């Protein structure tokens, strides 16, 4: 389904509002939407909500052989998916331009900034390294996918624990979570993307654009930064010229926002860890506010299955026995057997239908060969004498049929087949 287009009046309304320093959701220019982070029961699973934009992140790991030119480094793999759940415009399994752009930006933000210590992921140099896979699913698209995705990715990575391994000589032992506590990844810093939308050729600037604002913006500037105010990635798209001051202003704003977000992430992580340690309840179920009117919960419900057995027996007793299977097939002729009772052949009379077909063919042949006989003159006569040869030489199916045909039809048939075979049968034409 196509995206519903934004009407001209909606566009004008939004732009006018932005000119008056107002936003549709009541935010100020530099305000971020509310961020909510919740964790799943598994390690490395989180849902990040940025306003109404929602991203599900899951980190998984696998032991693989390393890339030949990087024998001692683990592999990081990012995969952001724009699920059709998020917006009807997203088609499943399609690599749209937006998706490629977002995935690349995410890779640059997280892999190229070296925030994960890939060397610590090495188990046996040149043989076994950990491959860390980060799957991100966009669940609801309400603007600013990249910020939500980058937060989800780094939160999931921080939350993730990989199974512990030990190496003794050549032997690699993998421990289950019960045997040894899984170990967290070593993370040097947390880069977070912050998006800026520019309007009216860079005159107006908004932080964290919503979906509608993204549709009317002229350009986008994405800055990835960590809490030490180090820029990891910077990307300007949309083709607007930005002044030096604007970029500097944006990077200052980013520094403030990243500090706030990092603090929030660390608080959320610490909170989850505390709950897990204390053996309390954790997971998505706990993060849904139960007071919400649209949410409903029941505790474990027992089901009375006392007389299930009797009920089943009753059904089986009532059921009619399966119809008898005829075991011995009737042998009509060698190679032809019949199973089941005297069923009429519903395929019709073979001979009759064949005859009809033949008659039709003859009629067709006559009409097509009429002018042909005119052209060829004597050849058709000579051909009649040589018809045995034609049959011998031929390998086409039609020739076989000829033997069974009555004389009159045969004549015509040979002529047509001759016509057809002229090209392929050089010996015949040579004889003439």
């Amino acid at each position, binding site marked *: *389904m*196509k995206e519903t287009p934004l009407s001209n009046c909606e566009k004008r309304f939004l732009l006018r509002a932005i000119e008056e320093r107002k936003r549709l959701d009541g935010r100020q220019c530099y305000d971020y939407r509310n961020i909510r982070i919740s964790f*799943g*029961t*598994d390690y490395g*699973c989180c*849902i990040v909500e940025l306003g*109404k934009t*929602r991203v*599900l992140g*899951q980190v*998984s790991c696998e032991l693989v052989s390393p890339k030949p030119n990087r024998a001692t480094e683990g592999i990081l793999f990012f995969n952001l*998916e724009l*699920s*059709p*759940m*998020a*917006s*009807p415009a997203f088609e*499943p*399994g399609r690599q749209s331009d937006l998706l490629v752009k977002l995935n690349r930006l995410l890779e640059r933000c997280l892999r190229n900034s070296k925030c994960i210590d890939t060397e610590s992921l090495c188990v046996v140099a040149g043989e076994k390294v950990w491959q860390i*896979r980060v*799957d991100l*699913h966009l*669940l*609801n*698209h*309400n603007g600013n996918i990249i910020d939500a995705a980058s937060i989800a990715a780094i939160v999931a990575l921080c939350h993730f624990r990989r199974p512990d391994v030990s190496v003794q000589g050549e032997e690699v032992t993998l421990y289950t*979570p019960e045997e040894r506590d899984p170990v967290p990844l070593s993370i040097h810093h947390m880069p977070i993307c912050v998006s800026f939308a520019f309007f009216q050729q860079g005159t107006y600037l908004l932080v964290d654009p919503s979906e509608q604002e993204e549709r009317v913006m002229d350009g986008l500037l994405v800055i990835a930064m960590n809490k030490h105010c180090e820029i990891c990635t910077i990307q300007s798209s949309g083709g607007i010229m930005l002044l030096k001051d604007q970029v500097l202003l944006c990077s200052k704003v980013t520094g403030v926002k990243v500090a706030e977000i990092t603090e929030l992430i660390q608080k959320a992580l610490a909170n989850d860890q505390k709950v897990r340690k204390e053996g309390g309840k954790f*997971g*998505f*179920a706990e993060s*849904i506010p139960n007071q*919400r*009117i*649209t*949410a*409903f*919960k*029941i*505790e*474990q*419900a*027992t*089901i*009375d*299955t006392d007389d*299930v*057995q009797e*009920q*089943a*027996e009753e*059904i*089986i007793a009532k059921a009619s026995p399966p119809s008898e299977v005829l075991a011995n097939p009737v042998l009509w002729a060698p190679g032809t057997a019949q199973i089941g009772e005297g069923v009429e052949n519903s395929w019709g009379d073979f001979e009759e239908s064949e005859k009809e077909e033949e008659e039709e063919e003859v009629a067709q042949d006559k009409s097509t060969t009429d002018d042909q006989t005119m052209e060829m003159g004597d050849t058709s006569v000579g051909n009649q004498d040589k018809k045995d040869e034609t049959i011998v030489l031929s390998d086409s199916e039609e020739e076989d049929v000829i033997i069974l045909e009555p004389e009159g039809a045969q004549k015509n048939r040979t002529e047509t087949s001759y016509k057809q075979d002229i090209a392929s049968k050089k010996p015949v034409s040579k004889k003439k």
Partner: protein
Amino acid sequence: METEQKRFDSGDLPALRRILCEQGLLSRPDGSASWIQGDTSVLVGIYGPTEVKVSKEIYDKATFEVLLKPKIGLPGVYERSREQMIKKTCEAVVLGTLHPRSSITIVIQVVTDAGSLLSSCLNATCMGLVDAGLPMNSLFCGVTCALDADGNITLDPAMKQEKEARAVLTFAIDSAEKKILMSNTKGSCSVEELQQCIAASQRAADTIFQFYRDSAHRKYSKW
């Protein structure tokens, strides 16, 4: 991590795990539901009835599209087969003839798989369809039963129980007549055991339908 739950807390009765459902939590889809059953959690978003691709258009009824998205990696054969099961179940229940030449897209995202995934997907789909306000001739629910080596029935098994089970049976049951809309079995079981599982699932379905009813009651309590 699934904590070992006490399943037979009151005598020998099998139980359904805790159920939690939130409807309408996503802003973009026409209907959405998050279904949490024990530790298994799925999220469903439904778009429809909307415009349909000409190639998929059916002149007298709505076209159903079901997408089941795994958490890790790309959808494979397993997801495709589950998609078909859910699609056929929906087609049997939703009054598609009321929306000819339109499409109903159901996107299911697995959030956590901790056993009884197919039944959770079915339940989430039903809640999503209710939230989207699509006309249906009855509701439906999914119930999974696991049969252990001694032939004992465990309702709504967790991942570990599912793996240890001799047979795992999943049924989709409609609310009007409690009949089976879809069944999927894995492992071997006798005819008698199959009937027992069906009977047990029908009992469990009552609880789930009561949950649907209470949930709807709560949702519309302030109107």
